């Protein structure tokens, strides 16, 4: 099984620990991980802001980089959702504009084999106990694209519940958006900040030491609000929790 890691541009540039955690976790589970250097960004920032044509080269790039892999794993619900939900649309629009089937074929070649990390663990590897150890109280925020576009359901929770030492705290209004929304956070700063501050208050009320999600972009916003408010709650990507073991060497 040849698994390509799509680390995502946000993780690559700002949260390399998450990518390293995915590699450690998957290798521990016996998966051989490959990182094609030709990869970059899924194109979500451009596409969701209205620059569809700027997105197209990145669709081609993604398809080319992962052409030979059996599965593509991304530690991001929103980037996996971008590929699965929007790549077919981008292909269809190009066809409708009389520009041939090249983009729809590129989309079709990667859509069925692109997985968000927890989906891959539960659905493809068939594991919920990944042998992790994380002796902390944690609350889980289901990110919007993971929840509503990918339909991750309780997969992340099932994985977290099997982590030794971890105590999961319920988050009030968990399914409400944190207010990040990509460029929304910059275009509508007042509303985005209001949403982030309501989310951070709900997180604080859980009394957990850490808040975890399947997306570092949401965590960047939530963590940014928490830090500004002086909260001790730590933002942690789910991969970093699942990669944790009792072995201090890691």
């Amino acid at each position, binding site marked *: 099984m040849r698994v390509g890691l799509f680390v995502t541009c946000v993780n690559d*540039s700002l949260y390399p620990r998450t990518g390293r955690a995915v590699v450690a976790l998957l290798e521990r589970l016996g998966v051989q991980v490959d990182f094609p250097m030709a990869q970059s960004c899924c194109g979500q920032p451009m596409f969701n802001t209205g620059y569809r044509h700027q997105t197209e080269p990145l669709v081609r790039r993604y398809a080319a980089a992962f052409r030979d892999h059996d599965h593509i794993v991304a530690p991001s619900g929103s980037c996996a959702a971008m590929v699965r939900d929007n790549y077919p649309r981008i292909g269809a629009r190009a066809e409708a504009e009389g520009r041939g089937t090249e983009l729809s074929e590129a989309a079709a070649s990667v859509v069925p084999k692109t997985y968000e990390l927890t989906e891959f663990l539960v659905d493809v590897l068939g594991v919920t106990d990944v042998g992790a150890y994380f002796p902390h109280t944690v609350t889980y925020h289901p990110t919007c694209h993971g929840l509503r576009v990918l339909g991750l359901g309780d997969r992340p929770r099932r994985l977290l519940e099997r982590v030794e030492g971890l105590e999961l705290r319920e988050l009030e209004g968990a399914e409400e958006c944190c207010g990040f929304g990509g460029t929304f956070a910059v275009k509508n700063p007042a509303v985005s900040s209001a949403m982030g501050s309501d989310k951070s208050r709900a997180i604080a009320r859980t009394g957990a030491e850490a808040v975890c999600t399947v997306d570092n972009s949401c965590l960047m916003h939530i963590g940014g609000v928490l830090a500004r408010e002086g909260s001790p709650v730590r933002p942690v990507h789910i991969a970093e929790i699942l990669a944790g073991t009792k072995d201090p060497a890691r």
Partner: protein
Amino acid sequence: MSRDGARAPRGGAGFPQGGATYLGMPAFPQAADAATRDGRLRANLRHATHTIRAKRARAVAELDDWARLREAGAAIKDRTLRHLDHHLVRLEEAVTRAGGTVHWAADAAEANRIVTDLVRATGEHEVVKVKSMATQEIGLNEALAEAGIRAYETDLAELIVQLGDDLPSHILVPAIHRNRGEIRDIFRDRMASWGRPAPEGLTDRPAELAEAARQHLREKFLRAKVGVSGANFMVAETGTLVVVESEGNGRMCLTLPETLISVVGIEKTVPTWRDLEVFLQLLPRSSTAERMNPYTSMWTGTADGDGPRVFHLVLLDNGRTDTLADEVGRQALRCIRCSACLNVCPVYERAGGHAYGSPYPGPIGAILTPQLRGLSSPLEESLPYASSLCGACFEVCPVAIDIPEVLVHLRERVAEGGEVTVRGTRTVIRPAKGHATERAAMRAARWAFDHPGALRRGQRILARTRRLQPRRLPGPGRAWTDTRELPAVPAESFRDWWARTRGGTA
């Protein structure tokens, strides 16, 4: 007609003084900025939307075939919209056969002119109104006022909005931004100048407020000779119009006056009576979280000795056929105005309904308004961006409008321009002004992402200078650092780590 002591509506900065109109409103981010700082408004909205959201979820969960009903609703609407020309002609024939008169209005001005002329012809100077989104959309009350005709809103929430010289901020509950204390003050201060004054010593108890409104409105119902309504549905096969409501005030307006004028968007057509069964299940549960709404009024033309003796139907286009021409955007016309999307929307909850600058606020307003009016001003151009694309609206929509998909589609029209239909003619619009910097940034980002070697060099520069980077950003980035800390730039990107430890090459 002057409004003595008129006040500017509250709930946000930038509203025009002294007149309840959405014209000239600021772009969404500016209007929302003021609303997020209004603690009372946010508390009112949070309480109201969370209450109805929870009730809706329970009402929907009662039906195990909800998903199939939703599909059926979407399918009926889509099929009808595809052949709308045909169904509208059938509707016109049926209404005419039943003794009504049909008028076609291409836009707001034409619809207002038709209604004003019809009222003038009766010799009356006042009308009673059933709550109607279409007449809000065209600004009928203001147009009638200019012609010396006073329109009295009879829906309780619309009455509160009208007396407060305010604007509606929610599809179902237009005065959702007001609490009981504010409503009591409005009744006490304003009822006398519109008709029967509020009783002495009025408190903010809901029963007392409702009784004050009932007494005030009863005088209007018994006096008015002309009623103006909208409709939730129009059945093409019989020419029957349907209004779904909770209070019964609509039924009074529909049956007591001698003349009834209904102004209805053309997309409200359903082909047959059987189609209603789907929507009469979908609408109340999504809207008021009731299994069935208390009043469903249906009228077909005129009948001797029962109801109005004269019936006029004004079929309103006002941007609808242009919207129909857009393959992605047309799904917005499926909307049955239930307001479920507003009640789950985290952006609506913080920004309030006024920020959307139209009688259609919330997620549906963000896609409907720019399509009906065109991307004609900074307000309409800002609406497709008034969403975090969280998808909660799509999840609850009873006719499965993929609102996030349409938002992104309209963002493309704003950012890149493209083909749109304006008054039936295909036109290529240019990208919106003010997006030049953003477009350049997106192009630069795309270029870097399409050249991973350059991206990697950029990452290294960021890493090397990370101790020198400011904690607060200037320019557009300021919006981020005003309320949030920036993430720390790592010493080594993932890409570099992989190359160093695994020996990959670019």
